[in-house]
């Protein structure tokens, strides 16, 4: 029992490491596909003085062979040194650390909204056939079709301008104030994902409801609540978890639009600026952070799955 479990975890962790390595290659070398010389950009259109150009190129290690640059970069990351930003003239880690918390908090809050509201809506839809089900589905489909920036504008119009409940701008100070400030952005960010998760929850629950073990549970005299909680929802969690893993990890990328709309200084904004300015060190760092988050979240999901469904470790999930 213990040996397959250890092998399972080890295999997943190995896959994680390989994926990250492959991602780092892609992230680093994709920069050579982009036209433009980062050193030239620093001179901001001033007449290219060959000496200073060479100086900057050397200073940022841009003259070394690509492979050597890659190893320096990866080695640096592993020691916490992400290189220097060309445009901010600061260490990348400092630039990043200043903004990462805002984005992470935004994403975390959005994730909470997605999980709670998505699950609730999905469960409600799956349990009520007929009108309620159809109403929830239509509402969700409509909500899912709203682009995040439109949702942002609408939410601001209603809740900050109209009702004045929430602020429309900035990220506030720490603690509750931060949550208060991030509520509308998180809702706008998560809205379409709530729809996706609710649909997955609904269909996964519906699928389980038709299973014979649910009928058996009912026939044994379990109340409806017990049947739904113990035998329907519990069994439906697998696909729900998988989809939420992908969704939540993807939030990091799509947060850029929302950060702009609500004037938050997070890594989404930073990413767009840095691409504009050909600030590769920052771009690479952000992409690496996003990829890592994505892969780590999904690995966590994979590791939790066997706890939800014991058949997965045994490799007989097809039964």
């Amino acid at each position, binding site marked *: 029992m213990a040996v*397959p479990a250890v*092998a399972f975890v080890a295999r997943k962790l190995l896959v994680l490491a390989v994926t990250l390595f492959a991602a780092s290659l892609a992230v680093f070398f994709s920069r050579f596909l982009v036209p433009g010389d980062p050193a030239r950009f620093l001179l901001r259109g001033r007449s290219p003085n060959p000496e200073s150009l060479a100086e900057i190129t050397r200073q940022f290690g841009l003259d070394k062979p690509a492979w050597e640059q890659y190893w320096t970069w990866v080695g640096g990351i592993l020691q916490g040194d992400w290189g220097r930003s060309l445009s901010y003239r600061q260490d990348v880690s400092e630039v990043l650390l200043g903004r990462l918390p805002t984005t992470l908090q935004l994403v975390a809050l959005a994730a909470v909204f997605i999980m709670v509201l998505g699950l609730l809506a999905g469960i409600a839809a799956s349990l009520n*056939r007929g009108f309620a089900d159809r109403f929830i589905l239509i509402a969700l489909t409509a909500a899912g079709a709203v682009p995040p920036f439109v949702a942002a504008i609408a939410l601001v119009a209603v809740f900050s301008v109209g009702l004045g409940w929430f602020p429309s701008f900035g990220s506030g100070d720490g603690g509750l104030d931060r949550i208060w400030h991030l509520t509308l952005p998180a809702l706008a960010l998560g809205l379409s994902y709530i729809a996706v998760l609710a649909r997955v929850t609904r269909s996964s629950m519906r699928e389980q409801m038709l*299973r*014979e*073990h649910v*009928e*058996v*549970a*009912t*026939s*044994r*005299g*379990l*109340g409806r609540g*017990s049947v739904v909680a*113990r*035998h329907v929802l*519990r*069994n439906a969690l697998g696909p729900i978890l998988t989809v939420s893993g992908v969704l939540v990890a993807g939030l990091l990328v799509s947060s850029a639009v929302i950060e702009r709309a609500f004037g938050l200084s997070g890594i989404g904004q930073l990413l767009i600026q840095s691409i504009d300015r050909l600030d590769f060190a920052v771009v690479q760092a952000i992409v690496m952070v996003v990829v890592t988050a994505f892969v780590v979240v999904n690995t966590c999901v994979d590791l939790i799955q066997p706890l*939800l*469904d*014991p*058949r997965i470790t*045994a*490799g*007989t999930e097809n*039964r």
Partner: protein
Amino acid sequence: MSALLQITDFSLGLAGRKLLDGVTLEVDDGESVALVGESGSGKTLITRAALGLFPDRSQRSGTVSVRGLDTLTAGRRELLRLRREHASMIFQDPRAGINPVRTVGDFLTETLVRWHGLNRAEATAQAVEQLERLGLRRAEELVAQHPHQLSGGMLQRVMIAGALLGSPELLLCDEPTTALDVTTQAGIVALLREARQERGMGMLFVTHDLGLAASLCERVYVLRGGKVVEHGATRQVFLAPKEEYSRQLVEATPVIDPGAAPHAPELPEDAQPLVAVEGLGKHYGLRGGGTVTALEQATFRLPAGGSLGVVGESGSGKSTLARLLVGLETASEGTVQVEGSGRIGHRLRTAERRRLARDVQIVFQDPYLSLDPRIPVGQAVADVFRLHGKEGRRKAKESARELLGRVGIAAERLGDKPRMLSGGQRQRVALAKALAARPRLLVLDEATSALDVSVQAQVLELVEELREHLGLAILFVSHDLAVVSRMCSELLVMRQGRIVESGATARILADPENDYTRSLIGSYPRPLWETESLEAESAAP
């Protein structure tokens, strides 16, 4: 005082169709009653109704009362009490019926903890005790395991334990042994018989197998199309059925009879065998090391026009053997020689596969899965004529019409998609598809197991007739000894990947050499009156 279960003039309609029509049925305390019918007869609806489980939006009339409580009109709380205290149900497939993500112990104790007021430890102790009483060893370990770690037979015992823990007065059994092997079935049937006698429960036993009903129940109701066509003492219905339909059912029920086995065709001494299998084996590598042996050391010969039955329980390697013969699997060792097609031990190339398919065809168990749902049946058969017979479009269509007519599919059904046909019709189409290649060997892999007994009888008859006409050799793989012995002159008995006994069917049935073969024959359900007279004989001095 009404009976324990009293169903009076119960009708149930769904979407304008009448599924049950005026059913009247009763089960008394301590009585065991069989409800026999084929798929679609409504027998499942009746058992569900006894627990107040009805399909959504169904129209119901009449009464279904358990201990005086009419489930058609009872409130939610009364129904819950009925299910908790008075009646329990055992379902067909314990793999589907027990939640796969929860432990066996959780399944057993969830009812005890919830309303019998026990704490978890007490409930577990009771569950363990019940499991042990049902003959499961290491019960303390079992309760911590998940369903996929148990065999089907063990799991069905768990399901029965779960039903008995509530100390029901009425036990509803919905085909509780259909998903199990025949030797396992014998154990479960004995268990149910004991439990019923011990507790004096009333039992309603639903089955499509008349023989099984006769081995367990004193009275029987025969159900057809939602109506009870006949009821009475089992012996009466079995030996002297009054209604035409009951008589057909009894006749269609296969029995083991050494005298009924077909004779082997007369062959010249030096005839080449059609199929020669030599030391055939198949091993599968497991993820994470280790191998599973599905088949080893299989050696046999099958002459042209011969018939060979392969019997065994699940996991005996009989299907692997069938798949190896048609080249769907690649052998790990040994050879298969099909006359004219050469060896098929290696992975086949397309041309080789086509040549082999011309000689060897297979019909699978489930015609719902083995026919392409998008292709009209006439075209499905015509396609085979075009592929193997190199016939033109028009000619192939004509050939398909003729062949389908021969297996009993009328010309006007040719344009139908498989879903518009019944199970038996689909299996006929699958058979026609196989025959369209004009094979010399037809492999039937449990080809009648998914069918109702009366349909099975028709399909078997058809196969027999076609075999005689076309001079086909047949390899019939089945778990059902009775079916195989009726069809085949030679028999292979398989167990855990090995052939444990082989020889003429009549000889094996009359005088089995191997212990396993003996237990296989002995597990076949025997009518109560036969076992009773046997017991009486042995009890007499």
